[in-house]
């Protein structure tokens, strides 16, 4: 307790002393007064008696002196009488007060009588010549007064005694009252003192309790402040995260670090954790939620690394938290989060250093081998194939030696950049070291010749790109590469073996005079050469008009010709009529498909418009196959409309046949283009339906008119229940979507019957007619094919 407490105690003592003093003083005062009155009471009555007695004495003395003077009137006796008279007059005068307040009625007459006798005596004595004769009559009169006085004195005495007794009784009562008051006052004083003492003790207790409470609060506050100071100054965030049973989440506590690391004030997160989750990178939110969910399920600590985006900056955070169950059923995690961006960056850098070439930023040998291993393992299962291109710069050593090492480095960087831009996103460009690069191409096709063709095309492109002049240190430099190609995917191959093959092929290219490309496999080399030749011939054939169109008829259920499908043929001067399967893939990969496709479109439109065999009332449509490259060409819509216009064919008579894979690539653009053509009346058929992985939801959105059941399903529709089911499903689907369903490759009557039975609308196949020149085609009813 401090100075204030001591002061309070002193004041209390002073106060109590005052009260006690006051009470004691009052009581003593009262007591003293009562005692004094009591003491004075008999005295007061005594005065009265005494005064009266004195008067009696004086009058008695006067009577005696009067008798003596009357008997012997000498000077001495006269003087004695005068003295006695003086005293009597004095006493009588002095006793007026007694007479006045006397309760006895006899007093007043006596006083008057006595006054008269004294006056008479005085008058006699005034005369010096007065003798015994003058005095004698007065003797009897004074004696008579004396007698009355004596009697009255007894009465006064008796009355006085009675009065005193009454007063004493009254006083006794008063004394009792006072005593009782004293006791009462004492008790009151004691009670007051006790009350004050109790109150004081109570106040002291309260003060002590208050102080203890304050001290406890102070300690608690200090502790909390210390903890918060620590929490706020620790790098990262210390937090509590709560999930209620109803799913509401919040951060009841988060240190100041939240602002720095998440760009969020702790108060914002305290209300709702959603704000906190919004700062987490969209790709990582699910991961964090999953981590929390698992932690809640196992009641085990949760640990998670994720990205946080705030102020446009991305940072990696690592959070650790331990859950505990609260009485209300909610889960409370205590944990901490810290920035691991630097560690992440370091890890990435280490990874990069381990897997990438520092000079060009390209994957190094290790990463290449790794990816190659993965691709080979995958291709073993899926038969997907690719090629490895081994690229070595010609005469690099010369450049590297002459103008300085820097020039060589710059050249390597530029080569790397050109290589990177020459391949697709999924392909890998790696630098093995020195001037050796490797390009790994994937998914080039399933057939070896296809793969070889693609690989050769890419190789040629790289040759061309690397042949372009370089600008190094302000000077132009010309460089050439030698490229070796090894294909993979056909057989199980080892990575090292594959790389060695490509390397060997590259040396063959060097030996062949550099700046060229060589395949490891001579047969491949030959095939590629053949393809090159064929492409050249095809180009020539297009110019020479060696391509022709054959048309295959399409009939409806009633046997009426509803349309023809235009099919291209190459009328080779030496090899005869070549089917499209042998040259279309080559045309597609080489880019020749664009002029060829346009030629087919123009020719089909023109020929059908001029076909004399057409039924004027129900003109048949012509179906033209469109390749993906053709369809994606920016001018495709104009080209189609131009062909219709130039050929003089109605747009309603043209039906474009698209493949599933084409439709599924970039769906929105596809739909837009189809809708545009459809607005002019052009129809669309989906070719080879059922062979790919069509998404039914997309199918619904596409503005199609016709579904074509692929010939592969129709072929075995009677023998294979699966194919039958697919055929049935396609027909049902077409009906549901309101599409016209046409079956391809119908060769027997039984197949047709099955399809008709299940509701197929139209048919195409050898049963109805082979593809043939238009002039050979005649509009004929197929009588036997009438509806069942």
């Amino acid at each position, binding site marked *: 307790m401090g100075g204030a407490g001591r002061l309070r105690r002193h*004041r209390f003592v*002073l*106060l109590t002393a*005052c*009260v006690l*003093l*006051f009470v004691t*003083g*009052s009581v003593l*005062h009262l007591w*003293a007064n009562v005692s*004094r009155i009591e003491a*004075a009471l008999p*005295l*007061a009555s005594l*005065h009265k008696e005494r005064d009266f007695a*004195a008067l009696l*004495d*004086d009058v008695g003395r006067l009577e005696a002196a009067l008798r003596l003077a009357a008997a012997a009137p000498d000077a001495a006796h006269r003087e004695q009488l005068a*003295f006695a008279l*003086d*005293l009597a*007059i*004095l006493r009588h*005068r*002095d006793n*007026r*007060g007694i007479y*006045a307040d006397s309760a006895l009625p006899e007093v007043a007459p006596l006083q008057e009588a006595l006054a008269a006798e004294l006056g008479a005596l005085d008058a006699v004595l005034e005369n010096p010549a007065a003798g015994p004769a003058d005095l004698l009559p007065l003797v009897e009169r004074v004696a008579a007064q004396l007698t009355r006085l004596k009697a009255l004195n007894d009465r006064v005495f008796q009355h006085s005694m009675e009065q005193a007794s009454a007063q004493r009784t009254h006083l006794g009562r008063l004394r009792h009252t006072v005593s009782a008051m004293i006791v009462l006052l004492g008790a009151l004083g004691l009670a007051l003192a006790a009350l004050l003492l109790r109150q004081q003790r109570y106040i002291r207790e309260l003060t002590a309790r208050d102080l203890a409470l304050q001290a406890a609060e102070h300690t608690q506050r200090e502790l909390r402040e210390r903890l918060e100071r620590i929490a706020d100054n620790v790098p990262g965030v210390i937090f509590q995260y709560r999930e209620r049973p109803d799913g509401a989440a919040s951060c009841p506590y988060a240190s100041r670090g939240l602002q720095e690391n998440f760009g969020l004030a702790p108060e914002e997160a305290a209300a709702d954790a959603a704000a906190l989750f919004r700062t987490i990178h969209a790709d990582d939110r699910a991961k964090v939620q999953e981590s929390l969910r698992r932690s809640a399920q196992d009641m085990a600590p949760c640990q998670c690394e994720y990205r946080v985006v705030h102020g446009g900056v991305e940072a990696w955070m690592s959070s650790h938290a331990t859950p505990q169950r609260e009485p209300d059923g909610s889960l409370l995690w205590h944990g901490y989060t810290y920035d691991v961006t630097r560690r992440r960056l370091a890890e990435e850098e280490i990874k990069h250093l381990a897997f990438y070439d520092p000079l060009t930023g390209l994957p190094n040998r290790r990463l290449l081998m790794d990816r190659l291993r993965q691709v080979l393992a995958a291709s073993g299962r899926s038969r997907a194939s690719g090629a490895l291109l081994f690229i070595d710069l010609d005469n690099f050593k010369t450049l590297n030696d002459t103008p300085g090492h820097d020039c060589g480095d710059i050249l390597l960087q530029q080569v790397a950049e050109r290589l990177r831009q020459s391949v697709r996103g999924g392909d890998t460009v790696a630098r093995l070291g020195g001037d050796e690069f490797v390009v790994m191409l994937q998914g080039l096709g399933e057939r070896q010749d296809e793969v070889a063709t693609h690989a050769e095309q890419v190789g040629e492109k790289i040759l061309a790109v690397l042949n372009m002049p370089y600008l190094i240190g302000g000077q132009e430099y010309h460089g050439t590469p030698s490229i070796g190609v090894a294909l993979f995917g056909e057989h199980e191959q080892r990575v090292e073996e594959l790389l060695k093959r490509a390397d060997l092929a590259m040396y063959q290219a060097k030996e062949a005079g550099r700046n060229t490309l060589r395949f490891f496999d001579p047969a491949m080399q030959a095939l590629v050469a053949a393809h090159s030749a064929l492409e050249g011939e095809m180009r020539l054939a297009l110019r020479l008009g060696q391509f022709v169109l054959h048309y295959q008829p399409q009939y409806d259920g009633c046997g009426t010709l509803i349309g023809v499908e235009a099919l291209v043929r190459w009328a080779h001067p030496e090899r005869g009529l070549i089917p499209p399967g042998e040259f279309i893939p080559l045309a597609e990969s080489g880019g020749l498909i664009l002029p060829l496709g346009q030629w087919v479109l123009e020719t089909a439109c023109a020929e059908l418009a001029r076909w004399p065999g057409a039924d004027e009332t129900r003109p048949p449509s012509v179906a033209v196959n469109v390749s993906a490259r053709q369809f994606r060409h920016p001018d495709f819509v104009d080209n189609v409309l131009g062909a219709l216009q130039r050929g003089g064919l109605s747009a309603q008579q043209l039906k474009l046949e698209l493949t599933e894979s084409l439709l599924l690539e970039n769906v929105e653009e596809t739909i837009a283009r189809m809708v545009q053509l459809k607005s002019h009346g052009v129809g669309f058929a989906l070719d080879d339906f059922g062979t790919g992985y069509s998404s039914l939801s997309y199918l619904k959105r596409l503005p199609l008119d016709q579904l074509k059941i692929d010939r592969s399903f129709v072929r075995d529709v009677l023998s294979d229940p699966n194919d039958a089911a697919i055929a049935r499903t396609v027909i049902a689907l077409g009906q549901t979507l309101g599409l016209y369903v046409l079956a391809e490759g119908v060769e027997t009557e039984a197949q047709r019957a099955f399809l008709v039975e299940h509701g197929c609308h139209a048919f195409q196949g050898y049963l109805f007619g082979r593809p043939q020149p238009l002039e050979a085609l005649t509009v004929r009813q197929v009588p036997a094919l009438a509806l069942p």
Partner: protein
Amino acid sequence: MMLLRSSFAVLALILGAALLPGRALAAPGAVPAPVSLPALPGGPVVLSVSGAGGERHYSLAELEALGLWEVATSTFWPGDEGVYQGALLSAVLADAGYAAATAVRVSALDGFSQELPRADWTDWPLLLATRRDARPIGRRDKGPLRLVYPRDMDAALHDTLYRLRWVWLVRRIEVLAD
């Protein structure tokens, strides 16, 4: 609360002081003071002072020669108040050679007497009055000598105890012990 307690203490103090026996302020003239009047002619002996050391006799003039004092006072009797002059009892006793007297008996012409303790003439200036309103006092007016206590100077003197000690018709003072 502290204020309330403090005011309570102050109130208690004030009440206590008011209820305790107080001492009223003396009225002007209530305290005896020396006074000067024309001397009386010589006269008969009015007072005898006796004791172990012999007897002394005084006339009014001789008494007044010991030093004349004056007091205006009330008395125990109605119509008795007035301005009294006379000698201090202490001066008379000292003159008679009994300055150290511890008690005296004062006797009156009518035979009345009272014992006075020393404190009476040492605590208060007790007057042996020779005059009232500057005139000698007759026998019928309790003269020629009477004891006058400065009653209005001290409330203690209002006690009836002192009523008897106002001896009048004083004739003799006997020193009882010294």
